[in-house]
């Protein structure tokens, strides 16, 4: 795959420290209402995908 050939390999991969979800949401100023709305969209998509998968069977 072309992508892998051109990635910077000289210095290896970058090691990251990992934030928790609450830290990420706070850093980006996601309000509790926005988080609920986002979660609802994710849940809705999840249900739709599950339904489509069941119908395909």
């Amino acid at each position, binding site marked *: 795959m072309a992508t892998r050939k051109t990635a910077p390999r000289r210095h290896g991969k970058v090691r990251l420290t990992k934030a928790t979800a609450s830290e990420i949401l706070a850093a980006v100023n996601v309000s509790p209402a926005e988080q609920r709305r986002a*979660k609802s969209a*994710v849940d809705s998509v999840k249900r739709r995908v599950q339904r489509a998968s069941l119908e395909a069977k």
Partner: protein
Amino acid sequence: VTAAGTPDPNAVFINVPFDPAYEPLFVTLVGCLVFMGQEPHCVLEVREKGDGRLLRIVELMRTCRMSIHDLSRTGMPVRFNMPFELGLACSLKVVNPSAYEVFVLDTRPYRLDKTLSDYKGRDPLIHGGTCDGMVACLLDTFVTEVPDAAAQFRSAARDLRRSAQLLKRQMRASSLFRAALFRLVVGAAADIAIDRGFISESHRLTRRGL
């Protein structure tokens, strides 16, 4: 540019073209950063308050530990913002080489040698204009402890793109590149990341081993 205080070790500034064709790549980039426990930031968060947008962009970049710049839009109309912000990021790197990292994305290999020859010697990450290519670029660059990360992130990013489209429709927005939608996409990415076990919800839950 002068050296700032300690930047947030998880904050990543993303500098990408805001056009409709780039929306899926933008969501994939934001999503993968969240899946890896990073805090994505972009100019959508910068509100014009009359004191100059440029200064506020620089201030936002100085709070980040690294930046990712996509220079794939080279045609007409000419876009100067992305190379301009790359220049700002490079100046941060020059001032404090060990404290700031700069990564460049492009669609085609070797093109940057012609369009930005001053940047020669550093290979851009080539995503090929595809979401899967974007995931591969990020996994080539950053260490992640997620098992089978490529397949997991591709699947999670697909769910996130569907969620983003739904949120965009709900907001009756013509573009995803709006401050509120950016926050919602980050919120959705965080929710997917928790659900799939990529990141923990909070330190309290981590200590309990949940």
